[in-house]
């Protein structure tokens, strides 16, 4: 390279890096998502006499990577709930979708000798041996949502009910249609058991209404972009139908957009999970979205509470039992315009 060329390249390099640095400085200012007025989220319902501070409890929490609104809400609910108690010390690991990595994170929590472990496994089957190790080491495990293979791997299971979610969605649609009409289903990732359970519940509910026919079904991938794409195609396939059940409100953002783009208003839509955007829309009644079926992320807050009770050897005072139950299944309520205000404070973004 001659010296004049070298100089040229250097000058260009300087100009380029200058431009990049400038763009970087400009752009870095744009990554903030902070609301100008930060509203404090409404506190969860009070816990009664059990809320009085007691023995210090160290709770270890291991969840999957928060790459979805619902999973993100799980982490936030856990942190927020732990913050409410002066006697709870929460040790939270960076979420991971990789089974090996999550196993090593849980091992670290076991080594730190936490009092109680709360685990939402990326994959229940794969994480079972690790959870058993914790139980064998004398650390009670609270299994969140995705269930382990054996009851020996957890003391308490807390989770949602995917089958009943589909059931409730189907029954709500059946009643609203007056037992007659055509229905389309936009499912989530088809290979996941939770999707299969939701669809089974939905189909079983529709069996109650022999004059309702499911005419179309497509599977998106729990994200906005595939929700938009599959919905756009479904709308073409079915020029007229009466109701739509969408399994997930995150992909529902895209699905609603596709419906607006097609200018369709001939049906009503029921969502799933309970995102804030969906509940806002239901409250305003400004779209075809008329209801959503909950899959409450508050289960993470409940898990922290139960972990605390477990650590302090307390019981649920509203039950007659002398021990905490071994399994708690949450109810998937149908959120409509009439009751949306009750659930809106717990909606996730």
């Amino acid at each position: 390279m001659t010296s004049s060329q070298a100089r040229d390249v250097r000058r260009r390099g300087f100009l380029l890096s200058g431009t990049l640095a400038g763009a970087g400085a400009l752009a870095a200012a744009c990554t903030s998502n902070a609301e100008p007025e930060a509203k404090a989220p409404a506190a969860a319902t009070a816990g009664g006499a059990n809320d009085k501070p007691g023995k210090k409890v160290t709770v270890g929490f291991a969840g999957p990577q928060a790459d979805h609104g619902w999973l993100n809400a799980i982490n936030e609910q856990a942190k927020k709930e732990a913050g409410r108690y002066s006697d709870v010390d929460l040790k939270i690991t960076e979420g991971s979708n990789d089974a090996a990595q999550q196993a090593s994170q849980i091992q670290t929590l076991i080594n730190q000798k936490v009092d109680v472990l709360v685990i939402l496994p990326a994959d229940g089957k794969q994480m079972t041996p690790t959870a058993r190790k914790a139980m064998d080491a004398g650390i009670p495990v609270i299994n969140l949502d995705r269930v382990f293979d054996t009851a020996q791997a957890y003391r308490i299971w807390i989770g949602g009910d995917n089958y009943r979610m589909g059931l409730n969605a189907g029954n709500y649609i059946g009643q609203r249609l007056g037992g007659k009409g055509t229905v389309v289903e936009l499912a989530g990732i088809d290979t996941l058991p939770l999707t299969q359970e939701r669809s089974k519940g939905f189909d079983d509910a529709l069996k109650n209404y022999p004059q309702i026919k499911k005419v179309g079904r497509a599977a998106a991938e729990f994200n906005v972009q595939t929700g938009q794409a599959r919905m756009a195609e479904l709308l073409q396939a079915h020029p007229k139908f009466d109701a739509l059940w969408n399994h997930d409100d995150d992909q529902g953002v895209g699905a609603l957009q596709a419906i607006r783009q097609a200018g369709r208003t001939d049906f009503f839509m029921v969502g799933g999970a309970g995102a804030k955007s969906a509940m806002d829309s239901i409250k305003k009644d400004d779209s075809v979205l008329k209801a959503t079926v909950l899959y409450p992320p508050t289960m993470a807050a409940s898990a922290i509470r139960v972990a605390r009770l477990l650590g302090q050897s307390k019981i649920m005072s509203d039950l007659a039992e002398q021990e905490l139950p071994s399994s708690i299944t949450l109810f998937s309520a149908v959120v409509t315009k009439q009751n949306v205000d009750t659930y809106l404070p717990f909606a996730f973004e």
Partner: protein
Amino acid sequence: MTGPEGVRAEETGATANSPAVSAAPPPADEQGRVEAAAAATGTRGLSRFRLGELRNLGLIGVLVVLVVVGALTRPAEFLTYDNVVVILTLASVIGVITVGMTFVIIGGGIDLSVGAIVALATVWATTKATQVYGTGGVIFCALAVGVGCGLVNGLIIAYGRIVAFIVTIAMLASARGLAINISGGHTQTLNSDNQALVNLGYKDHFLFGRIPPLVIIFAVVVALGWVVLNRTTYGRRTFAIGGNPEASRLAGLNVRLHTLLLYAVSGLCCGIASIMLIIMTSSGTSANGNLYELDAIAAVIIGGTLLSGGRGTLIGSVLGVLVFTTINDIFTLNNLTTATQQIAKGVIIVIAVLFQRLLAERRAGSGAS
């Protein structure tokens, strides 16, 4: 994937061992002459053009078969104006990315980071802080993030001399990580001040009431890409460098700068696609653009572009995108499951490539006799 990487290693070897080569760049007129010669030999002139045409013919055949299948299975819905709009709109986002990918692959590289860049650009452009600057701010941010990521890719590949496969896989990981970090896993929707952007997806904003703006953006990007690739020095150099980087370097082409620009072009296309995705979904999320790199590379390859670089057509890539989008559409129209779709996609990739090979061989055979 021995494109520029392999040769870049030779290049450094040459510089180290024989200073005479690097000390004497050829004079300007010589440079032009060799460049043209390299382009001609690298691409076999006219025969390349015919071959490209034939490959496209094969794909058009596949597309026609698909259209017939669609029209026969769902006669009332498939060949309607609305459905064609849906297919073209869905093709437009991945189509724009495929244009950038075609440049990179013809130039002997690979870009595995396109999906992650799209995720980052949609997230960055839809943060509340960006949305304060209005529609212009959102558009600028998406383009800046796309080009910025492309430049980082290009700089490290061309001047850091690291294999493109590794660099773009690293970008894939970190860009998506940053997207999750910024969005906190949330789906960020456009606020009411930026509805102008969302409105572009609605029917009352279609050009002449019929043509969606997204499809127009797609058409413009393809047209510009075609002109740059086939009618400019930049395009000819892309073929030359992809076909034989060492000859191109000896001919006096600035292979490194050109490589850097190729990844910047791919980044720019990702930025444009991100804006289109924001228009389509009114939101940005770190889950956007999942596996786009595979869709784009598959479209480029069934479009007849050599994965090792130096040969390929943009129109083929666009046809590849249309084939995949039409398959998706037909499957959803017929209520078939995602699993069946994936099986069919794989089978169709193999059939399309076999079909092209057969056509090309028959042509070569008849040419010889």
